[in-house]
């Protein structure tokens, strides 16, 4: 699914209304969570992770969320630059 605003549409002028690209807030929020959890995972002691079966869940999940967040931000910026060009 493409998420460009339809410029062919005669009502496009009216519809510019929703140019806010949702990928940006999702990317920033998940990225922020990722950094926060990764740092927290690095500074916490292993004993805390006894309940998560010995896995440092904050570190693992934090890195995953950094990856997902950056993927959202990257697609949003690539699209924005392409539009400008």
């Amino acid at each position, binding site marked *: *699914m493409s998420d460009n605003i339809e410029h062919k*549409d005669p009502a496009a002028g009216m519809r510019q209304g*929703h140019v806010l690209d*949702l990928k940006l807030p999702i990317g920033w929020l998940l990225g922020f*969570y990722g950094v926060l959890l990764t740092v927290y995972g690095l500074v916490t002691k292993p004993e805390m992770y006894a309940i998560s079966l010995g896995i440092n869940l904050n570190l693992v*999940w934090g890195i995953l969320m950094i990856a997902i967040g950056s993927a959202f931000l990257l697609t949003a910026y690539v699209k924005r630059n392409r539009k400008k060009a």
Partner: protein
Amino acid sequence: MAPVITLNFVDYAIIGGYILVMVLVGYALKKYMKTGEDFFLSGRSLPGWITGLAFLSANLGALEVIGMVANSAKYGIATVHFYWVGAIPAMVFLGIFMMPFYYGSRVRTVPEYLKLRYNEATRGLNAISFAIMTVLMSGISLYAMALLFKIMLGWPLTQSILFAAIVVLLYVFWGGLSSSIYNEVIQFFLIWLGLLPIVFLGLKEVGGFAGFAARLQETLLHSIKYLGTSNNPLGVDWFGVVMGLGFVLSFGYWTTDFLVVQRALASKNINAARMTPIIASFPKMLVPIIVVIPGLVALLVLPEFAPAALPTADYNSALILLMKHYLPNGILGLAITALLASFMSGMAGNVTAFNTIWTYDIYGTYIRKGRPDAHYLKVGKYTTVIGVAISIGTAYIVQSFPNLMDYMQLIFSFFNAPLFATFLLGMFWKGATGWGGFWGLLVGILTAAGHYILYKTGAVTYHSDMAANFYQAIWAWVADFVVTIGVSLFTAKRDPKELVGLVFGLTPKPKAEARWYARPAVWGTLAIIVAVVLNVIFW
């Protein structure tokens, strides 16, 4: 009573980050809300993936998630029927067959379609009942949220209610349906990211599906095998599941409930509108991963759900106890945020549906007709304030009379069950008349209420409450269907010219504009095939 879970500063930073982003998104949308359509229908401008994820999330409320984990602990793998039988076919049907009439006729609400297709009385019946139910529902979920956070985290009731209500009010007041939809999309990602750790750790601890197979009762491990009679954990036979859940309840909800249909109407074009429920159907098929697996894990790892404790177990606490069992601080905040997000987006969804129906179908029809668009935009914004205020009031009333919650949900079920018959006949039989539609709907609602009284007085009996619920829906649907046809045969027919664009057979087929890989029929067929395969695997 001490709270179940203790949060630390990292957890609170995660919760705070979510609230901040939601309010900022609402504020950023504020300057775009220039017309009524901007506010109520996002200017019909959103791409399919956004409306699709919102369509799914609008239904994936926190109560739904907690309830489905509870169902999975109670009924086992049979819970997948609520997804693979009770949702996918209806969502695909909506996208392929019904959306051309909803979106193509440019109606702004579901009741508005009923007005064009049937008559004013049918619209009034549906609009007024829907508006009342929606705003009360929003109050119920507000109370349920505050209660959960009180038990789980020790947050005081009043502060939770007011805080959540003000955040929702702010972003809906500024951004209308767009705020609501954007929140739902963010919630979609949070729910998966917040609950998947429980799934992984749970599977690791019990030894995967082999662990389930070795240690759980055989009846909990199959979806279809034991449906031949009512002697299964659900207490419902295959006919009740297929017709009651899969046909009447599921189609009634997914294809006529304005809360979900509104998301598709916000799409930027008809192809995106038709793709909305079909895109939603794929992640919907996967939701059992985050509800059924935790439910089964709870039975094996939580002492509260050990065989000896089961008769008195509070199934609704399963998910919360699993969070406590597996998640360290940090990730725990993420899971709590996911629940908070689905509560708030559920409330925002109810409030936006309420202000749209109120403004277009009640205020703009019966109170002040034919005012300029700017007037209705203003009314919509202030209706948001009133809707939130009524929700807060309802939350307080429910707090004093907890039984009201069950009664309200019961009354809602009377209104929802027959509606799909009205739409099916309206969209696919041009002979259905205005009064046929009205009397069919009314008799359907009364049939549901009557059946409930018979069941409660013991005049009719079923294996379980769930079976009673499914069969009640079937009877209501049949009554609506028969009465609509019966009355239509004796009342004045509508001029076929007025029904162009509203009824199948009188509407020119849309030209296939999209390439084959973007067509709703292709993806819809694929969704059905995948759902069938999943049913076979887990039969």
